[in-house]
């Protein structure tokens, strides 16, 4: 929630390139082949990077200055057109922008062009960093970009006085401040938990600066920190994707990615790293900034295999944290207990409810696998749409009344829309056991938007409203049973096509609209292969014992398809098979692939016999093949 100029810079970045024939974007979905050796994996990775660079390079118009930084960076990465790059840089640096979204592309060009740009061009960059006050932003991803950029530029131009920097601080002071921030942030993320966890777009805001740090930092310790953080981010991505598609829960997502799960910058990263999903259009714009340096990153095989080679179903439980709460909270950062249950045909992910982020949180969903995710709305969930100055003030240092209006103009167009599908709520409590999700809602009287929205995709088949109260459907090879706990309407809904503009389109999706303050949803997923037919699945669901009441505190007792008896009461700890469920014992990561103790700074990444340990306390990477 900061200055519009920051947002504009970001928007311009995303729109920097236009669509034309991109081989991987317009071509068929990638084959689901597991490349057996690191050499083949690396060769495929390099080929994808080459595709990006070749595509972007081909868009240059002969004889014209390059209009923006991705083109210059691409040309420099390819060691082409250095003279034109120089003239283009000089032109662009006449009107430098402000903020991290301008800073990191400029760093990219400054470093790629160290030995290619003319002295005048390099001086133009340097001068821009002297005269234009750079906005730091107010969010963790802003600071990751800002301080990485400042760190690298301070290293590139050491021993210079404060008068030569926009900050008024000397190179040494800028370097020290940036280093201190980055180390503090890495320590926080690797001991207390990640803040903006599993973001569909913001992964770029972290991965790109960390790649730059890993590539260009002079200090070997900072280079290593960059590399380790990249491994950490990509291991987390791998674990939370279903054939390359990042599913919920997400600290932050957007109106489009929350529905069309494959249409996310995260898919670009899955594609370039794992090769298992098509990239998004223009490689997300941001992908170009990654690609220009990506050959300097070597994806560990263990992470590749987590993404593409899952021999069995798995449960992964992670501990994360919310964004900083300035007000309205007993804690600065609240704990997030995140569950991911992934099977071959679908994944179920959630956290316990509440707001990890004030606007763009996505608390839970079932996402089913599709061979080609482009255009497919492969997800199901419910949520309480929130538009609340109280909640915004919890996270933003602003006066109350203008914020809801402002955020709708700052890339979160749906924020004040009652039929949105983006966002979390303080009045939602979620519990997940394997492929069962119970979401309860206890919405106070007087709340703006006193209803819940369930998302029913255009891509569901066999949608059946059953007299039992269950709604049955099939998505891909996943059967879905959705049980609304209060009266509802299923009605057509026009989805937001752009979080920036708020433009909508009716594509055949439906909104389950339930205007009851005390409310709930149960979703049970199962694989098609588990049942003889759809009728057998329905019969199995109908047979599951279920009782609930909504009069005082919403309460549900449900026997899951997997045999657990789960009781959830809003405001109380869930009870599983008679035992209160205890979140306090959760580790930072716990599962077959990722494991870390709270406070340890040490992540063990495992796949079969492969193991990599990232230890931020000893600043070391340890690889081994287990016997």
């Amino acid at each position, binding site marked *: 929630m900061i*200055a519009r100029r920051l947002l504009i810079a970001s928007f311009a970045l995303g*729109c920097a390139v236009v669509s034309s024939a991109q081989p991987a974007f317009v071509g068929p979905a990638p084959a689901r082949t597991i490349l057996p050796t690191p050499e083949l994996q690396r060769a495929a990775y390099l080929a994808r990077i080459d595709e990006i660079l070749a595509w972007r390079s081909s868009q240059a118009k002969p004889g014209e200055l390059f209009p923006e930084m991705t083109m210059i960076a691409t040309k420099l990465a390819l060691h082409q057109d250095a003279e034109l790059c120089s003239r283009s840089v000089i032109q662009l640096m006449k009107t430098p922008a402000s903020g991290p979204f301008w800073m990191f592309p400029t760093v990219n060009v400054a470093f790629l062009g160290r030995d290619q740009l003319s002295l005048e061009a390099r001086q133009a960059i340097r001068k821009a960093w002297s005269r234009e006050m750079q906005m730091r932003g107010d969010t963790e991803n802003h600071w990751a970009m800002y301080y990485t950029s400042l760190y690298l530029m301070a290293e590139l131009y050491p021993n210079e006085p404060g008068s030569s920097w926009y900050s008024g601080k000397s190179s040494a002071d800028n370097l020290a401040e940036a280093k201190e921030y980055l180390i503090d942030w890495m320590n926080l993320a690797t001991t207390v938990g990640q803040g903006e966890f599993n973001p569909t777009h913001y992964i770029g805001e972290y991965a790109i600066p960390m790649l730059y740090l890993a590539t260009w930092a002079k200090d070997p310790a900072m280079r290593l920190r960059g590399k380790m953080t990249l491994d950490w981010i990509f291991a987390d991505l791998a674990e939370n994707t279903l054939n390359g598609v990042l599913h919920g829960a997400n600290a932050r997502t957007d109106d489009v990615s929350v529905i069309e799960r494959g249409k996310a910058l995260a898919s670009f990263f899955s594609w370039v790293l794992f090769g298992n999903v098509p990239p998004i259009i223009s490689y997300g714009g941001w992908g170009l900034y990654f690609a220009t340096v990506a050959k300097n990153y070597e994806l560990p095989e263990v992470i590749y295999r987590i993404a593409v080679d899952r021999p069995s179903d798995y449960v992964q439980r992670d501990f994360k944290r919310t964004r900083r709460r300035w007000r309205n909270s007993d804690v*600065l950062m609240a704990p997030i207990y995140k569950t991911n249950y992934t099977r071959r045909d679908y994944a179920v992910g959630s956290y316990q409810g509440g707001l990890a982020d004030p606007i763009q949180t996505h608390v839970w969903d079932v996402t089913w696998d599709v061979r080609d995710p482009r255009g497919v709305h492969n997800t199901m969930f419910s949520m309480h749409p929130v538009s609340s100055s109280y909640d915004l003030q919890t996270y933003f240092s602003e006066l109350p009344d203008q914020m809801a209006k402002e955020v709708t103009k700052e890339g979160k167009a749906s924020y004040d829309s009652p039929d949105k599908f983006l966002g979390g709520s303080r009045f939602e409590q979620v519990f997940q056991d394997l492929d069962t999700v119970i979401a309860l809602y206890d919405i106070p009287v007087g709340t703006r938007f006193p209803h819940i929205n369930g998302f029913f995709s255009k891509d569901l088949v066999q949608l059946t409203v059953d007299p039992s109260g269950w709604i049955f459907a099939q998505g891909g090879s996943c059967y879905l049973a959705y049980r609304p706990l209060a009266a509802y309407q299923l009605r057509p809904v026009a989805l937001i096509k752009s979080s920036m503009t708020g433009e909508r389109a009716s594509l055949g999706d439906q909104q389950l609209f339930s205007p009851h303050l005390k409310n709930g949803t149960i979703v049970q997923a199962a694989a098609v292969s588990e049942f003889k037919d759809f009728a057998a699945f329905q019969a199995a669901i109908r047979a599951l014992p279920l009782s609930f009441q909504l009069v005082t505190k919403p309460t549900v007792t449900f026997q899951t398809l997997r045999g657990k008896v789960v009781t959830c009461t809003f405001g109380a700890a869930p009870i599983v098979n008679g035992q209160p469920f205890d979140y306090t014992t959760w580790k930072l990561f716990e599962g077959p692939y990722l494991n870390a103790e709270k406070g340890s700074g040490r992540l063990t990444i495992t796949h079969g016999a492969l193991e990599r340990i990232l230890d931020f306390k000893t600043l070391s990477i340890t690889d081994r093949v287990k016997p």
Partner: protein
Amino acid sequence: MSKIKIAGALLLSWVVALGAAVGPAHDLILCVTFRVPGGLTATALPLPLPPCGFHQRGADNRFTHFGPNYPRFNNLARDPRDPRVLYAASLNGVLCSTDGGESWRIGTSWDMTEPRDVCIDPHAPDHIYLALPDGIAVSNDRGLTWPRREIGLPRRGKYMQAVKVDRAQAGRVLAGCESGIYLTENGAQSWRRVFSTQATTTDLQQSPHDAQLWLATTQSDGALRSRDGGLTWEKIAGVPAAAALYNIAFDATNARRYAVASWTYGILTTEDGGETWSERNAGLPAPHRVFRLGIDPDNGRLYAGVYEAAVYESLDFGRTWRSAGFEHSVVYNFVFLPRFVNTPALAHLP
């Protein structure tokens, strides 16, 4: 300390006396940003907007931009001993200038963000107070270092929107926080709560006529008044409290006139020391979402920053309004600083 106090008082009286002889005694500086009408669209790029940041009124009543083109300044403080020394509460932290705004240094480090307010102790001008979303930092060395000074503030509830030094006593400071109004009488060595609120105290002001009289606005508890230097507070009965109030100002030319700004209520004024209040929105664009107001201490002119609309001014304390420019702006503060007349107000101005 007493020598500093006396010297400061002498300097101030000298400056004010000189100012009275040659023109306005105060500089007016707007902390302002400009917005694209109708929100962000691709076609709105590039933005045909004036630079954001500080706009200072000159002798010809026209405004001149100075400092960085920067969208978020919340307040500006000036060293009473030296017009070239400035402290700005900005998104980046506190920005410090020692050359009248020609160049700036980010005074705080990575661990402080988005200060909401900044003020200088006029009796100890090396002491600067910085209101933060998570407490307060105090510099005792002209902005070189910013240690936190939070003993007595609650672990939570210390979100601070406003901080003001009592001009009558060095080291006596009031702070408007999420959980109420806090007071220190020892230069922030320790704090104590003097009034509890349900939500944030948005502004604090000390009367220019009576140093014991303070006013405050809140999000949840309406407008407040203290007649004992901020020790005890009472709600001002005539001011509505159902919606947030954004800021409050005294009229230095008339001890009985105050005004309140509110997104919901627009401009509220009193001309009888707070006994009765009137809405003064006729002539302001509807909806009259007033984000900030200010009263010129030289002539009682009332300024209203109407959110994303423009700045309006009134010569009759709100009865009539006229545009003062700044279309499509959001004004975060109207800053009136005692003018130094023996040197240019700020180095950049002719």
